[in-house]
């Protein structure tokens, strides 16, 4: 069955008559595509590009430094993905070495419970896109309900719409768009209602290999048909309106704010911060804006995140910038475009 899918995709692309640039905007898709060997299968037909959908990759260097600094005097809870990301000066891994009290959480809810029972001043790093925001909203709600006073959140949550619009407006040469299935689980098909305006065939996809293949088939069919409606190939979890309860919860506790995307710059309204009523739970250092700094190091993460450059086209790639000595977040994050390329590229 998968052979037929692959053949049909290739047939469609041949009919279309040129090599395709297909972009995904989710770190989990980056990994899934590379791990399944799709670049090698579609070597002749598709350039797979990665957009700014890896929250770890786009988290600012100064944010990492701030969080690492807070570990001096508080217990810091973070997702494992963040541990090795280089900030501008330091990293959470180095803070862990120096101070010891950086704890990995699988869920912010676990972090709240642990921090509450420890009683120690604790910071929970709120990093993620639309998929994760509702879980942080639950965590904030738990703090309110239980009147927990020793926790504050250092928030750098982001929403996908603004950077995606920015990307689509800036990049005219993308032929197809893979939309993140788990963001869509929360925001629904309706959450991408702006995408058809950019006239690029787009498909909401899951993360299994077959999901991606089915989605690629739909992208190529849509391309041939000139069909720019957003298609849902993950209907087993993605509903037209999404999870309204989750959306309402995020809206209850958070409001939009400007936020910094590493390598891109500040995007207005693309972040989330706690509403004024809950400001006591927000660490004062949250959502501080910063300026692009990696031009000094030669890092091209910004161009890579915008799909203007492939990882192996960056001068630093593989030599000065490797997983054990990363210059930018795209290399150190397991989902980063450069890390995925480095880890899996030999098969291409």
């Amino acid at each position: 069955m998968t052979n037929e899918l692959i053949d049909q995709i290739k047939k469609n692309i041949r009919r279309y008559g040129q090599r395709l640039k297909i972009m995904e905007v989710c770190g989990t898709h980056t990994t899934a595509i590379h791990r399944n060997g799709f670049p090698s299968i579609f070597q002749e037909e598709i350039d797979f590009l990665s957009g700014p959908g890896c929250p770890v990759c786009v988290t600012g260097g100064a944010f990492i430094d701030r969080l690492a600094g807070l570990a001096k005097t508080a217990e810091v809870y973070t997702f494992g993905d963040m541990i090795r990301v280089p900030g501008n000066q330091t990293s959470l891994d180095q803070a862990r070495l120096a101070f010891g009290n950086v704890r990995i959480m699988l869920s912010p809810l676990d972090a709240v419970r642990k921090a509450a029972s420890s009683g120690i001043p604790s910071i929970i790093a709120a990093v993620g896109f639309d998929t994760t925001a509702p879980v942080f909203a639950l965590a904030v709600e738990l703090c309110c309900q239980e009147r927990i006073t020793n926790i504050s959140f250092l928030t750098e949550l982001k929403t996908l719409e603004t950077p995606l619009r920015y990307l689509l407006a800036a990049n005219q040469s993308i032929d197809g768009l893979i939309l993140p299935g788990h963001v869509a689980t929360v925001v629904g098909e309706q959450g991408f209602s702006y995408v058809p305006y950019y006239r690029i065939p787009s498909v909401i996809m899951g993360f299994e290999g077959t999901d991606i293949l089915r989605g690629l088939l739909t992208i190529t069919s849509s391309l041939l048909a000139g069909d720019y409606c957003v298609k849902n190939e993950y209907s087993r979890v993605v509903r037209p309106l999404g999870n309204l309860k989750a959306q309402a919860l995020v809206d209850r506790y958070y409001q939009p704010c400007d936020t910094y995307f590493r390598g891109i710059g500040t995007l207005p309204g693309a972040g989330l911060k706690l509403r004024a009523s809950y400001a006591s739970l927000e660490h004062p250092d949250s959502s501080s804006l910063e300026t692009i700094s990696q031009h000094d190091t030669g890092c091209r993460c910004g161009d890579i995140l915008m799909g203007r450059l492939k990882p192996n086209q960056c001068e630093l790639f593989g030599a000065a910038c490797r997983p054990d000595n990363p210059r930018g977040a795209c290399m150190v994050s397991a989902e980063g475009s450069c890390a995925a390329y480095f880890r899996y590229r030999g098969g291409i």
Partner: protein
Amino acid sequence: MKITRAHGNGGRQTAELLEKVFFPRFSSAPLNERADASSLPIAGHTIGHTIDGFVVSPYIFEGGDIGKLAVCGTVNDLAVSGFRPLYLSAAFMIEEGFALSELERVVTSMQQTAAASGVTIAAGDTKVVEKGSLDKIFITTAGIGTPFDDEMPSFQRLHPGQSIIVSGDVGRHGACIYSHNSDLGLDQHVASDCEPLVDIITQIKKSCHPAFMRDLTRGGLATALNEIAAGASLGVSVQETSIPVSSQVAGLCDILGLDPLYLACEGRFVAIVDAAHQAETLQLLRAAHASAAVIGKVTAEHPGQVLLTTAFRGTRILDMLYYEMLPRIC
């Protein structure tokens, strides 16, 4: 620069640490072989010798404890290197306050595992350290043995076309340890695959003439395959769909965002045999674990690299563990 946990994970950083700090200073012919056990010429004979430190936490887990592990780790290293394990020595470092009954339990476990492996504990040492200096109990074991026969497994005996066979499903020990991590809130613990491999390797050695064997420990299957490719300067090609992983280990990896190919095992090994011996090797291994499987081949292509053919017949590199594998949500 400071030593980090990644230096102890058995992957690239461990290898780099060894190359940078230890091998230049401890250079010797046996050590330069970079084998799981060193071959020592003594009075006209060849003696196999190896040593391993065990710091596992929790020290008791489903399927074993640190004592059983301390015996298995060392006898297995000797066995895969072609030596029948004969004697072990064991050094215990014990934290003040550790319960005597727990120590007895661990030592009894070692006694039983040693008996099952046909080894005698011939020397030992104990130290007690101040509370807080180490985590309850650490054990180091060293072992010696004599060759099973004249056919010593070695990188030099590897050549293109040979079959790579894994003795059972992978990642159970690593999954076991992760399942005990209280930060991760898992209710259920996966059982470790910790077991001595002396018997099965004795059988394989007798009938199947393995060119090379390696037990899968830190860094998992992927790391071992990379070590083989690098050591032999040959390529390794494996099929994703052939690699056995139990549902439980897969489930844990789904929840934590881990890759089972990098999870440690403590009772699994790969055997590399000529195609002519593939069927018999597989039969012998399957008698012990039904999940044993042929996973790939040695190849002349892409020397030094491990290439994985995916379920979709794409290809991609299967790299060594670069850093600590951390649970992820992304």
